[in-house]
């Protein structure tokens, strides 16, 4: 019976999340569509004046389906997006192909940077959990500094340190893993490190707060009273109930690496989706930019849905709430 209730609850929760993804897609695509509608006058005349020719005009109008009512156009726009017909960039390349070429780089950067940030932040949080001690002060100070500088400045300092002074890592570029796996890792290191310092600073700040709250809870105090040492209480009593917070932070780091690493990718001349977004903005490519925005929204909301599943499995408390 309990198992059945649990199952039912899980389905309900999952359905709610799916609904929220659907809503996200509709809202975001509507925003993108309406703004593009408003701006397309510009870019249509821009494109046509470059290409010229009467038949080109007709073809262009048909390709952006500038006929029919607003509603009809929105629906065909959404259909085109969902079926992967994303059109061409301003310079005439196939958008779907361009994105497919670059998605791998961004994805490997996201995975790498999240892994690094967990490797940095979890030990640091555990060591500096006692408030007021030296590790706490050092970690807090460093994370405030990192969080109050724009991420590209952290990247500059890493480039100066690792590329110019030590000369061990390349300052920019990307090597595809099929060419050379060590080269791939070497080119990923610096962008991943600068993203992960940012995420780690965030994780340390929030995860440590959760650890501190949990170590004062009755279940942790009971362990303490039973004779466990401070590290034991921390590892057995406080760590596990703080994990959902950590998972949430990991999900938000991952989604921001997938959706918004525009700055870091540009600093390191990294051929991913973020730098493509910047290229689209600078070359006034409304179609490419809109497609990337919708894909990012899709990626972020799917990440949060996976998070919901993970939390459900990891945290028995979340199953009890209605």
């Amino acid at each position: 019976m309990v198992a059945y209730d649990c199952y039912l609850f899980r389905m309900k929760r999952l359905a709610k999340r799916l609904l929220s993804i659907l809503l996200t897609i509709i809202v975001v695509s509507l925003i993108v569509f309406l703004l593009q509608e408003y701006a397309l006058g510009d870019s249509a005349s821009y494109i046509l004046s470059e290409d010229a020719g009467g038949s080109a005009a007709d073809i262009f109008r048909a390709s952006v389906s500038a006929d029919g009512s607003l509603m009809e156009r929105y629906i065909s726009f959404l259909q085109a997006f969902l079926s992967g017909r994303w059109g061409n960039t301003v310079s005439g390349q196939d958008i779907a192909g361009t994105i497919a070429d670059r998605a791998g780089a961004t994805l490997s950067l996201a995975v790498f940077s999240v892994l690094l940030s967990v490797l940095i932040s979890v030990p640091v949080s555990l060591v500096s959990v006692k408030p007021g001690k030296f590790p706490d002060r050092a970690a807090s100070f460093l994370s405030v500094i990192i969080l109050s500088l724009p991420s590209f400045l952290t990247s500059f300092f890493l480039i100066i340190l690792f590329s110019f002074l030590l000369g061990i890592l390349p300052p920019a570029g990307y090597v595809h893993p099929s060419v050379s796996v060590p080269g791939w890792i070497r080119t990923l290191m610096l962008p991943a490190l600068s993203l992960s310092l940012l995420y780690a600073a965030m994780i340390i700040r929030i995860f440590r707060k959760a650890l501190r709250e949990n170590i004062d809870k009755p279940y942790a105090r009971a362990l303490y009273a039973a004779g466990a040492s401070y590290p034991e209480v921390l590892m057995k009593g406080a760590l596990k109930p703080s994990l959902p917070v950590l998972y949430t932070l990991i999900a938000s780091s991952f989604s921001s690496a997938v959706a918004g690493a525009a700055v870091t990718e540009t600093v390191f001349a990294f051929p991913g989706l973020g730098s493509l977004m910047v290229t689209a903005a600078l070359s006034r490519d409304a179609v490419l930019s809109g497609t990337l925005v919708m894909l990012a929204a899709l990626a972020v909301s799917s990440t949060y849905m996976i998070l919901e599943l993970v939390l459900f499995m990891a945290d028995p408390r979340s199953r009890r709430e209605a």
Partner: protein
Amino acid sequence: MRGRIAAGVAIIAFIVVVSFFCASPGIADGSLRLQSPSLQHIAGTDTLGRDLAGRIGYGVLVSFSIALPVSMISLILGIILAFAFSGARTLNTPFLMLSDTMKSLPPILLALFLNALSGPGMVKLIAALSIGNIPNIARLCSARVIVLRSDGPALAASLMGISRGRIFIRHILPFLMPYLGAEAITIFSASILTEASLSYLGCGVPPMIPSIGSILAEGRSVMLSAPWMILIPAVVLAAVGIALEMIVSGLSESDSASH
């Protein structure tokens, strides 16, 4: 914690006053290119020979004049939304979904998209940075409003037949203030960073206006021979960030002490 807030405010005030006095876009002078800091040019000069202190001061004022409206707009529209919907508890779910949706669109992405549509601009930048915060503030605010409304003074006032708007302004809003203040400053400091990043990419404030981001973009190519071009803006930004962080932590401590 009052001391911490006061110290933070003092640092910010100092930076603003100094920026105000030295702010100037500078005059290009080929003979003064990339001079290191001296008595004449406290922060040195940039690649075109312009006084860097003046440009940094100008840039600080530009970022503040973007971050201030962003946090104000987010806060005011968020409060208005929270008040408008504080009558209906069922609206919490749509708020939640809306703020989830906005969370999936990082402000930097939205700003880049607006740039792709029609180029850089101040108003667009402010809009792109504010829009994501509004549903979030509204949601957090309305959750607190529901608690406060059924508590002490607000309940007594509503039993005395005082109108909803008046209760909201006199008995609910003052209790939200420390929390909203901390939230506004968090938005403020995040906006400064996002503005700097966007201007670095060339998609923030229009290129002819000096900004911290564009100074740093210029400094990147010469960061080994002219390190002051990135170090001095970095120190200024770090000081701003630490001061704001001091205010936020002071405010949120006084907020949790009042509960």
